[in-house]
């Protein structure tokens, strides 16, 4: 990193740029209600006012500009109106468009003026407003004598980008505008693919070397972090700025290029939580690439997250995605598989709790069933019932229309897109599988625990049965030990879930996709039930996504990988990674790095679908809880995004601390 970058970097990290921000106290909602404006009129008007209010701020040495100066987006509906809308429609989360992957490069290559020609009335207005805001930056650049920026902003965003710098700046303007409009989880998609032609051309002209290109990319990456604290999300860091590197083209050719490599390096150097780096790999990925990627893992950001083309692409195609679209897949905010440019899948619309299904079956059916198979039948029935419940209750989905998002997508997005599938997470698979394994072994096979005993112990939260707790918690078979006895139960659970959604059509004409993720449900769902038969006490959370139980004694990462790659992912491809946590010390030398890379390769070669690696240092986290001021930059991976540990709520911190870490 060069000097100016260091200063700028510290400036952003120290949040000094927040000084340029102010909040607006406009009461737009009442005004709009009085005027009786439609949703789209409100979005259009608010965007105009915000663009107007935004000031042009160019920080010292910044190469990629645009900085939020308005810190809040005033509501466009009154509480009463929003209540009415909620009662009339199915509103997903905040109601604004999210988890979409618009076609940045088409606009970058076309310019906003040309895009205006085919935009609708509100799209045209949005474009005008963006150009006006951009012109403020152009003026500011002139004032500051920034000739480089004057040249860039004279060209973009009105006209197509002519070079790498202009392309990056154009992206920033588009992305910034999406956030300003109110869209969230605005993903980046296959950046290395669509931006590389610009970089390649510039390097051939001698405009950049690898070093200077890297510096510019670092500056560009920094821009994702400038305003992210005001983006919406469950915790800070949950903002969906996911970038997908690598992967293949329609003919199966590997598209990993120099830009892919530089992006990995830029993330290593910046050590910031955005953009979120994802890497598509396959059995053709050379071992050296895993070693390179593991150097980024070492940094401890939880990047990259790996997705296996060999498993994902065929599964997407079997779900109805065209080959051309399937090979172009990226991830949404966390890890859900979505299609750039044309996809409008709502990949996080709901979640199934496996442990809840087991819990209901234990209380309602265990005493009535005479065999494990019969009991599992009751569990299956609960899963099917819950799936029916979820699916039937999603009717009349409605999103607040986003005119500018509509401009950037390749299809009309107001009422859905080319693909309108709904994704359902599956929480707590390990807790459920472990519970069922314990019931199968002790209640039905060995008959060493009676049904009454078990139910009573669970209902009493094991308070009076420490030995039973110990047996279930530490001695019973657990998912993650390459033990077919329990691994096959996990397989059956995922198959049951996928089967329960099969054939169902959603209210937008799409299907339902079963997933292996949990998002934040691992906390919520865990509070819905009491203790469980795997020896989990009440209030203890489940593991995140596709992971083993928090307290399971597992032999090590090799066994975990073996257990978690046996399932039939082809039927359940909404996304949701296996998480492996390694202690920092394993990356201390090249030997360790190479071997972790080899382990990842092994996971992929075995048919694993998605993987995220976390690098932890327990002592550091515990100290960070006591002395947060000493650990400002400590980053941890949550369920699909990374966060600054000290900025997390305590329950998230505790969860990360409780996770299994493999040491050497």
């Amino acid at each position, binding site marked *: 990193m060069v000097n100016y970058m260091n200063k700028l970097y510290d400036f952003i990290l120290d949040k000094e740029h927040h000084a340029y921000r102010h909040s607006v106290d406009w009461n737009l909602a009442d005004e709009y209600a009085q005027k009786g404006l439609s949703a789209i009129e409100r979005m259009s008007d608010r965007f105009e006012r915000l663009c107007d209010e935004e000031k042009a701020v160019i920080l010292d040495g910044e190469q990629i500009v645009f900085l939020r100066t308005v810190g809040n987006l005033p509501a466009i509906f009154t509480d009463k109106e929003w209540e009415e809308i909620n009662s009339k429609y199915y509103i997903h989360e905040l109601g604004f468009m999210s988890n979409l992957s618009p076609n940045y490069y088409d606009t970058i290559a076309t310019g906003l003026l040309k895009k205006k020609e085919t935009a609708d009335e509100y799209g045209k207005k949005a474009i005008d407003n963006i150009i006006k805001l951009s012109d403020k930056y152009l003026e500011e650049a002139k004032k500051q004598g920034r000739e480089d920026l004057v040249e860039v902003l004279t060209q973009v965003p009105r006209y197509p980008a002519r070079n790498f710098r202009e392309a990056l700046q154009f992206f920033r303007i588009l992305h910034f505008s999406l956030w300003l409009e109110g869209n969230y989880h605005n993903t980046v998609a296959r950046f290395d693919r669509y931006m590389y032609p610009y970089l390649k051309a510039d390097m051939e002209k001698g405009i950049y070397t690898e070093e200077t290109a890297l510096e510019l990319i670092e500056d560009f990456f920094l821009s994702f972090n400038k305003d992210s604290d005001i983006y919406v999300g469950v915790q800070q860091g949950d903002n969906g700025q996911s970038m997908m590197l690598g992967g293949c083209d329609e003919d199966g050719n590997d598209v990993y290029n120099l830009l892919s490599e530089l992006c990995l390096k830029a993330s290593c150097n910046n050590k910031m939580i955005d953009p979120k780096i994802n890497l598509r790999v396959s059995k053709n990925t050379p071992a050296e690439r895993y070693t390179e990627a593991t150097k980024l893992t070492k940094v401890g950001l939880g990047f990259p997250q790996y997705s296996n083309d060999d498993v994902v692409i065929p599964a997407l195609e079997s779900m109805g995605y065209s080959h051309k679209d399937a090979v172009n897949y990226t991830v949404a905010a966390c890890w859900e598989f979505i299609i750039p440019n044309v996809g409008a899948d709502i990949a996080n619309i709901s979640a199934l709790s496996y442990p809840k299904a087991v819990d209901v079956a234990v209380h309602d059916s265990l005493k009535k069933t005479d065999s494990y198979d019969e009991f599992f039948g009751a569990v299956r029935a609960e899963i099917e019932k819950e799936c029916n419940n979820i699916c039937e209750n999603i009717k009349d989905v409605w999103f607040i229309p986003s005119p500018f998002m509509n401009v950037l997508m390749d299809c009309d997005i107001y009422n859905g897109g080319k693909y309108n599938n709904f994704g359902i997470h599956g929480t707590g698979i390990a807790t459920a599988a472990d519970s069922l394994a314990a019931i199968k072994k002790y209640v039905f096979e060995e008959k060493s625990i009676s049904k009454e005993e078990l139910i009573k112990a669970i209902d009493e939260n094991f308070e009076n049965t420490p030995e039973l707790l110990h047996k279930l918690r530490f001695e019973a078979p657990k998912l993650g030990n390459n033990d077919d006895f329990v691994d096959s139960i996990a397989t059956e659970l995922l198959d049951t879930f996928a089967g329960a959604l099969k054939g169902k059509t959603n209210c937008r004409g799409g299907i339902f996709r079963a997933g292996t993720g949990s998002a934040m449900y691992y906390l919520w769902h865990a509070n819905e039930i009491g203790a469980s038969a795997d020896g989990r006490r009440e209030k203890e959370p489940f593991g995140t996504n596709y992971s083993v139980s928090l307290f399971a004694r597992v032999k090590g990462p090799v066994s975990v*990988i073996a257990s978690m790659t046996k399932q039939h992912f082809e039927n359940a491809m909404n996304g949701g990674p296996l998480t492996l946590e390694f202690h920092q010390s394993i990356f201390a030398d090249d030997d360790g790095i190479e071997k972790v890379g080899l382990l990842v390769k092994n996971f992929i070669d075995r048919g694993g679908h998605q993987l995220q690696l976390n690098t932890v240092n327990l002592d550091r986290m515990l100290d960070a809880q006591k002395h947060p001021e000493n650990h400002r930059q400590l980053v941890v991976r949550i369920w699909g995004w990374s966060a600054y540990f000290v900025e997390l709520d305590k329950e998230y911190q505790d969860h990360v601390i409780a996770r299994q870490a493999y040491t050497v």
Partner: protein
Amino acid sequence: MIGTIFDIKEMAVHDGPGIRTTVFFKGCPLRCRWCHNPEGLSFEPQLMYKDARCIDCKSCQKKCEHEECKPFGRCIHACPENCLEIAGRRVTAKELATELKKSADVLGKDFGGFTFSGGEPLAQPEFLLELIGELKDYHLCIETSGFCDSKIFKTIIDKLDFIIMDIKIANDELHKKYTGVSNETILDNLNILKESGKAFIIRTPLIPDITDTKENLDKIEKIIVGSTWEKLPYNAAAGAKYKSLGIEYQIDWRRNDN
């Protein structure tokens, strides 16, 4: 043949080439004061008690009928926080080999091999030999102090692919003082190792003021003459497991060599 082990570690990275599985043998004839695997010292199963999680519920003090708990006067199955564990598992070579091969199968061609460590694997020679026989299709490595009858030493290393041997202290008096045994046999075995033609490296743990002195390191350098030498930084957390075994860690200060 039955042997006693205290751990199997998948994904070991500093114990030889490739992703390896390391088996830790229980029992060692040495008593190095800096040993960071104290549960590997005694040949017998031992109780490990982790007091950090103890909630003092006294469930472990209730009488039980488990055979494995009888020597310890505590029921290890009763603890809701899993504070009690027995270090040391008796297993036949065949059983152990079957278990070990599972991780090899998972990794396939990415599997590096097995490493025998501990404790001192050479202290259970018949068990080790049988285990080697069961695993002969794999790359095999040993981490050893080299303190062993020379005939046995030669027999075993002949069957291995890679040897990691410690030379801790060159001076015999000091060696006896800090490890409890003479280094004469060790140095004899070093010669056997050199003459065997087998691939090996020598390791010396750098224990502050004990092994990391210029004098000691210079002498060792002369002894090992041109062999690959790894000097290991002192593990500041070496004393961590002593308390749980009721043993005192004799090096009462720490130094962070990073």
